[in-house]
């Protein structure tokens, strides 16, 4: 403790800003971690609460994915001895015509039995509407809304609300207003209740229900009830407690959570390196101090413990600031995540409160401190090894001994060889990641040697630019590798990570654009929702027939997509006429023979799957996929794999005829329209809208509009990769400022002599600037090279563990070119203050500095 007070605190106080900036990486990593996890948990908690509230006293729910099932299933379930009450439900998210109200979740129920499961606590309205279910049936336009929704829109009993349904815009009448609490808290009050049979009509369900909610008789356990129902219905149905619906939400969050975790880890790793760099510099700077302490009787252990304690305290400081920042960020991230659910559920779930859990805080604090201590470990060890005799002699410590170099290069060679063996020969995830880490480790070990080589290559260039200043700048790097190699390594590593992420983003973007161009090539899309991803509404088959009659329409391809259960997780099932796909949107198989794939799939003898599904579940042509359907188990082999970006969880493609046969459902979410040659898109679009206006809820999108929407989403992803550049710049600035500060101290006499023999102040500045630019150039060169290797690993990691998609290797040249001026400019900015301190130093003191 005394040493901390006497030795550490004066140093920290003197370099307060630098000390604070050193912990920035830790702070960022902890903040992102806390913010993301807090937001994640808060949103999921809110969603689970919503699910529970809507479920009421429901013990089990029966679904068949998103496809729904025929009405007769209800009777069969109600006939089971174990079941006390079973009620049908249709859920739909609709857009009201009310300004700024967004979407409304409509819970359509059969009032006959539903009150056994849910409490409708009306504060006002026609009691008859609850007491006598026939009133609901007799007035199919009846709606019960929440107090919150009514208050926001100035609604009273008898008010009329327009809703955009499957059959066009319809007016509904408020006949009940629920008290606050319970059901009404779901989705911030954007919930309404209506009759299930009316909902079937207006939401295009035909004679199907979305699910059955049920309660069991007393004495029957959940397991017993579930077994009885599964035995009755067969494999095409899921029978689960309401809480398991949270799984669906969590799978949506999965990729987002992985991405945020990676960002957090990235920031922490860079933070660790900034700590390492700063402490390495500090050890160099405080060498004389360490020498004095050792001469006075401080043991190696005391010195090591001192520096480790400093790194721990720095980590604690950064972590505490990160905790506070993360808690503030959590609310913003929660709003963003809640908004993501609009894509899945159509409604944004925004948690009322964002509670930071003590467990998350403690873990983040421990993680930040541990990262900082790891970063400070090697410098602390080096500080303990400072030779007191040499430490009290200026400048002698900068040269790496030949022995040290040999050991490093030997270790690098071994690590590189081991990496190659693990990657090429090793099997499994552990071998891959071991190879990855070893490759990076080898790169780090080689940094001093590589930096020296690049600096030596730069020397003639710098000398040509400025004979004196350039030579001095280059020699400073060449003769003092200890001073610069930590900074160069930190910069190299962060740039390698940027290149890796940039390459991944770029490859993803190109793949997506390629997919959009080849797969999404109809001239028009007719959808039941404003974007192609929402599946709540469906068109009856007759709509496709109606579209075919429009002048200029050459072909209409109905597409029905729905999430189904595959190996316990939801995946997207897309059914369409494979023949039409072959004719219009042919794509080569990524795996499997293309002709065989299409032939077998078109004749209903196999599934085509997306490459990400294949990657995530290790599926290949010949693998058998089993899907539970209302008509029994559907078992077909995979006949081929195609590149597809429809869904991050993976996609199964099936010929429409098979879907209709097994799901008894000929409806469609989207209708792909190809026009005849010469037909004009705006005219046909107008014709469609005119023909179906008022009859169906229908959105007509052009090919350009769809592509714009998808590329817009993709640009957001790219934005994330480019944001990592900010971290790289921070690393550059911090590292170079540190290095130059030490350089100027070490070269004080040299700079003094320069002034004494006639160097102007601007010439002194130039030498410092050039040294900074050289460090930046060396780090940039090595970072771009290591980035090429890192990109391979990042693409492989993405394929194995994140998206499942195998992307092509494309070095992000544009990003690399962008990094060039950014990093060099950062290096220059970093040099401004050190250069000023160099020119302002006392000449006399500099010459006496020995």
């Amino acid at each position, binding site marked *: 403790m*005394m*040493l901390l007070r*006497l*030795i550490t605190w*004066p*140093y920290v106080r*003197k370099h307060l800003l630098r000390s604070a900036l050193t912990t920035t990486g830790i702070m960022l990593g902890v903040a992102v971690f806390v913010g993301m996890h807090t937001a994640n948990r808060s949103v999921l908690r809110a969603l689970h609460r919503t699910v529970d509230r809507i479920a009421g006293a429901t013990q089990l729910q029966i679904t068949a994915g998103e496809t729904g099932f025929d009405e007769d299933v209800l009777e069969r379930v109600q006939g089971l001895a174990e079941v006390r009450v079973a009620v049908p439900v249709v859920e739909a998210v609709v857009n009201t015509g009310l300004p700024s109200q967004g979407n409304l979740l409509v819970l359509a129920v059969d009032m006959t039995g539903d009150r056994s499961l849910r409490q409708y606590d009306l504060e006002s309205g026609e009691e008859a509407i609850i007491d006598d279910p026939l009133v609901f049936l007799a007035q199919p336009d009846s709606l019960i809304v929440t107090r919150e929704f009514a208050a926001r829109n100035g609604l009273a009993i008898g008010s009329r609300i327009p809703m955009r349904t499957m059959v066009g815009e319809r007016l509904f009448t408020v006949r009940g207003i629920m008290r606050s609490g319970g059901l009404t808290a779901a989705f911030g009050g954007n919930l309404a209740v209506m009759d299930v049979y009316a909902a079937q009509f207006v939401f295009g369900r035909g004679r199907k229900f979305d699910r059955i909610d049920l309660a069991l008789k007393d004495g029957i356990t959940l397991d017993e009830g579930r077994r009885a129902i599964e035995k009755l219905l067969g494999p095409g149905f899921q029978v689960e407690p309401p809480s398991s619906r949270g799984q669906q939400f969590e799978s949506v969050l999965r990729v987002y959570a992985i991405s945020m975790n990676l960002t957090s880890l990235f920031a922490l790793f860079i933070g660790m390196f900034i700590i390492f760099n700063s402490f390495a510099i500090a050890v160099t700077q405080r060498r*004389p*101090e360490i*020498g*004095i*302490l*050792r*001469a*006075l*009787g*401080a*043991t*190696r*252990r*005391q010195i090591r413990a001192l520096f480790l304690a400093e790194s721990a305290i720095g980590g604690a400081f950064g972590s505490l600031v990160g905790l506070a920042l993360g808690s503030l960020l959590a609310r913003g991230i929660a709003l963003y995540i809640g908004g993501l659910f609009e894509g899945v559920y159509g409604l944004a779930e925004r948690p009322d409160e964002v509670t930071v859990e003590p467990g998350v805080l403690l873990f983040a604090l421990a993680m930040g401190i541990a990262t900082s201590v790891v970063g400070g470990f090697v410098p602390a060890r080096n500080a303990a090894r400072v030779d*007191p*005799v040499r430490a*009290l002699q200026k400048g002698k410590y900068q040269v790496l001994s030949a022995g040290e170099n040999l050991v490093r290069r030997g270790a690098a060679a071994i690590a590189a060889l081991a990496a190659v063996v693990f990657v090429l020969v090793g099997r499994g995830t552990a071998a891959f990641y071991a190879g990855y880490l070893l490759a990076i480790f080898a790169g780090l070990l080689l940094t001093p040697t590589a930096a020296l080589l690049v600096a030596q290559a730069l020397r003639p260039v710098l000398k040509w630019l400025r004979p004196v200043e350039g030579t001095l700048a280059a020699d400073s790097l060449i003769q003092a590798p200890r001073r610069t190699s930590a900074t160069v390594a930190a910069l190299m590593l962060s740039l390698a990570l940027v290149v890796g992420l940039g390459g991944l983003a770029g490859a993803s973007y190109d793949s997506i654009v390629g997919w959009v161009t080849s797969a999404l090539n109809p001239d028009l899309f007719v959808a039941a929702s404003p974007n192609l991803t929402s599946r709540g509404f469906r068109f009856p088959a007759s709509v496709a027939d109606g579209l075919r009659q429009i002048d200029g329409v050459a072909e209409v391809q109905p597409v029905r997509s729905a999430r189904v259960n595959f190996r316990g997780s939801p995946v997207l099932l897309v059914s369409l006429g494979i023949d039409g796909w072959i004719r219009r949107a042919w794509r080569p198989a990524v795996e499997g023979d293309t002709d065989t794939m299409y032939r077998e799939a078109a004749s209903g003898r196999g599934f085509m799957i997306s490459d990400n599904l294949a990657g995530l579940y290790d599926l290949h042509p010949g693998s058998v996929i089993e899907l539970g359907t209302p008509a029994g188990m559907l078992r077909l082999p995979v006949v081929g794999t195609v590149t597809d970006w429809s869904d991050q969880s993976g996609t199964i493609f099936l010929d429409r005829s098979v879907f209709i046969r097994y799901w008894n459902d000929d409806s469609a979410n989207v209708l792909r329209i190809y026009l005849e040659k010469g037909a004009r898109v705006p005219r046909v679009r107008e014709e469609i809208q005119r023909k179906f206006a008022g009859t169906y809820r229908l959105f007509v999108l052009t090919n350009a509009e769809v592509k714009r929407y998808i590329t817009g989403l993709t640009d957001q992803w790219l934005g994330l990769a480019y944001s990592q550049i900010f971290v790289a710049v921070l690393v550059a600035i911090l590292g170079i400022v540190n290095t130059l500060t030490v350089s100027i101290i070490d070269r004080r006499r040299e700079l003094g002599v320069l002034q004494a023999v006639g160097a102007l102040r601007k010439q002194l500045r130039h030498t410092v600037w050039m040294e900074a630019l050289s460090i930046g150039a060396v780090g940039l060169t090595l970072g771009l090279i290591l980035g090429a290797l890192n990109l391979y690993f990042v693409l492989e990691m993405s394929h194995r563990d994140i998206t499942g998609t195998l992307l092509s290797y494309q070095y992000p040249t544009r990003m690399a070119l962008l990094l060039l001026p950014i990093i060099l400019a950062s290096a220059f900015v970093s040099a401004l203050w050190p250069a000023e301190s160099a020119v302002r130093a006392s000449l006399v003191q500099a010459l006496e500095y020995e």
Partner: protein
Amino acid sequence: MIDLIRVSKQFDGKRKVTALDEVSFHVERGEMVAIVGPSGSGKSTLLNLIGGLDRPTAGEVHVDGKRLGGLSDDQMTMVRRDTIGFVFQFFNLLPSLTCLENVALPLHLRGWARRKADLRARELLELVQLGPRLEHLPEELSGGERQRVAIARALAIYPPILLADEPTGNLDTHTGAEILSLIRDLHERLGATVLIVTHDLTVAGSCPRTIALCDGRIVEDTRR
């Protein structure tokens, strides 16, 4: 007290440099010895070996009955901590610490309680006539005053051995004489064994014994 037996020290670099070549001598407890020689004769190297800051390439160094060669780094540090006080040519005070804190530093390294360490530091600074400057930083002191602080620090644990490497080398003649007088005074009072490395013959002349080095060898060992 101090025994060197055929001690050699070589430095490996671009060329091998022999700083000391089979040096042997004995110093009794309480002696005050000057070690003289031209620049590069091995004086400072000799002091570093005796002080446990470095290890000989060959030969043995015994300090206060302990053979330094067989000790681990921590054990050497303990010997240095408990037995030896160092005075350097360039003072080597920590610039961010006050005089009091600089003098108390070796005591804190030994785990002394703060109050006890401060009390001892005050006593020592009074001893070297710097009582009024306790809270001053080194940059606020003259060269002579800084060297006094360094001497006070070296005496913090009342070491049996005091090693001074060119203690007056960075001072003017008058101040140097004052410092030398202080060292002699403390030697008489505390009875410590004192070795002073110097190139100044006046300083050497004030010590009862002088060992002269040249090219790493003892060329003369004179007692007055």
